[in-house]
């Protein structure tokens, strides 16, 4: 039998008190784990959604006069009589330092066309990358190839175009391969075709009106990438679309700060529960501690008993707190439903952190009771029984 056995036997004997300390620590740890898990899950969710946003870097020709709005966002100066971006220049984008972070580069050639005696906007896009750049697109029919076009929902409605119909654009014959389901964006008013076809119809060989780049992913250095692309394309203006991202990230950061504040309070209360319960326990064990001291236990032996007890409870509380915290967030997200697809993988760092925090709080809170027990005068302790 050793000091450890005495500690374990005492814990088993005083199950109620041990459970109370355990509960106090579990609540503290579970709160911190839940807050961190929730914030991490939200961050992952936002990143996941941001990746679904598609393009987040826009490249437009540099100009000092006119401006063009696309998708509700100011794209910068675009003038039809200015020097356009050359399609052949775009390969330089793939040579930037952070090229590995580029998911897709989508050049767009825009121009006005005559359809059924009305003026419309034709957009030539690379349909190989629209899945990445415009993941919200739902094409009813097929993406266009060769002399085919895809018609935005509003354009189709205004121009009376139906899927499969033949269509004459700038005196060239096309077939409507599919319709674009309403997106709520300016895409609804456009007619799309392949990039090469649009350049041909609009008589803009090798010309690109703007370029969309999908680069936003977790920890992508978007600002640095904007600078790097700008250096490669000196005649173009490169912009990052980060307003929405920043807004959500700032909200999340505020939430994190607030939650961490709450967590600190809860952990402090958990620590107090341990402190008060152990103080009571030490008082209850006056006789026992008096006996230990009388028969020759050193102060550090007494302290070790208390620390082993609180350490064992703390480890258990760390494990249970981690399970409870992550479980609560997982269940909460499932119930709320908004983030049901948000994955919550096992996080060994968080689990280790939870245990380390529980042990730190447990040992810190038990330091004073342990000291009190160790300093107990054996003569006085045995007299007061």
């Amino acid at each position, binding site marked *: 039998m050793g000091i450890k056995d005495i500690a374990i036997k005492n814990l088993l004997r005083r199950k109620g008190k041990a459970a109370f300390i355990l509960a106090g620590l579990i609540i503290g740890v579970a709160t911190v784990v839940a807050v961190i898990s929730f914030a991490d899950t939200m961050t992952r969710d936002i990143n996941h959604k941001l990746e679904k946003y598609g393009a987040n870097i826009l490249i437009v020709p540099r100009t000092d006069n006119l401006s063009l709005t696309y998708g509700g966002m100011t794209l910068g100066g675009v003038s039809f009589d200015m020097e356009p971006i050359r399609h052949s220049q775009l390969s330089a984008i793939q040579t930037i330092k952070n090229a590995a972070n580029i998911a897709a580069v989508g050049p767009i050639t825009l121009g006005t066309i005559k359809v059924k005696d009305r003026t419309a906007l034709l957009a030539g896009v690379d349909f190989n990358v629209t899945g990445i750049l415009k993941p919200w697109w739902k094409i009813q029919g097929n993406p266009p190839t060769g002399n085919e076009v895809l018609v935005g929902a509003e354009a189709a409605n205004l121009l009376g175009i139906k899927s499969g119909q033949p269509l004459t654009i700038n005196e060239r014959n096309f077939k409507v391969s599919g319709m674009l389901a309403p997106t709520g964006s300016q895409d609804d008013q456009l007619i799309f075709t392949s990039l090469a076809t649009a350049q041909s119809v609009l008589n803009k060989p090798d010309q690109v009106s703007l370029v969309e780049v999908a680069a936003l992913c977790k920890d992508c250095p978007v600002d640095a990438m904007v600078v790097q692309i700008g250096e490669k394309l000196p005649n173009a203006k490169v912009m990052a679309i980060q307003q929405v991202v920043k807004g959500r990230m700032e909200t999340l950061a505020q939430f994190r700060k607030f939650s961490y504040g709450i967590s600190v309070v809860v952990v402090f209360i958990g620590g107090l529960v341990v402190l008060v319960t152990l103080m009571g326990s030490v008082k209850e064990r006056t006789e026992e501690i008096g006996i*230990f001291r009388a028969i020759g236990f050193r102060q550090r032996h007494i302290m070790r008993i208390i620390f082993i007890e609180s350490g064992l409870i703390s480890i258990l509380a760390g494990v249970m707190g981690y399970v409870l915290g992550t479980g609560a967030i997982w269940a909460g997200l499932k119930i709320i439903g908004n983030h049901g697809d948000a994955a919550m993988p096992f996080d060994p760092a968080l689990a280790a952190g939870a245990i380390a925090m529980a042990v730190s709080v447990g040992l810190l809170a038990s330091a004073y009771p342990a000291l009190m027990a160790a300093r107990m005068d054996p003569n006085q302790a045995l007299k007061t029984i």
Partner: protein
Amino acid sequence: MSFIIIDHITKRYGSGNSEVKALDGISLTIQSGEFVSIMGESGAGKSTLLSVMGAMNTPSEGRYIVDDIDVYGLRNEQQADFRREYLGFVFQSFHLVPYLTVVENVMLPLTAMKLSGRQKEEMAMEAMQWVGLESKAKRLPSQISGGECERVAVARAIVNNPPILLADEPTGNLDSRNTQEVMSLLSRLNASGTTVVMVTHSAACAAFARRTIQVADGRLEIESNKQSTATAAIKAA
């Protein structure tokens, strides 16, 4: 040189008008292997004297020397080591740890020693056999009688073979049969060389000791030993 020297020990509690002298300049020497009983009325100071001898109650004045060690000149942790190495305690109310089995209670003084588990168990079982309780080793204190509890306390006190055993009214809670058994144990222990110092109210128990000290108002009043009593009886005849 005496084994235990109590040199003008005074113990005061409180201060000013409320000051109480529990021990008032007591001096006493005890040789190795003696069996000494301390008697006196309640409040006379006998338990205070025993706690001073137990290195648990620092005297206000005087020195307490055991085996040339000035006990109260030691630091707190060294005093704990002294208690572990030199002393065995037997208390009136047993003071067994209720959640430990009988053998674990006996093993307690060995817990803080650097011994293997096997050594500790062997020493504990030897002490248990000595008090005749080896068959009840796995029981809890609540599952044995008061007399058996006191024997467990004796086993715990002797498990590490201390040279001195201090007993504070060890039979105070026992019936006559159990009193006889415990006193026989202490006598056997003394016969094997252990110095025994026992506080008691009972003249019958004190009769087991070779020397009896009477304490009153914190002072040593009368000291007698069996040999001198016997000599006096012979002379009277």
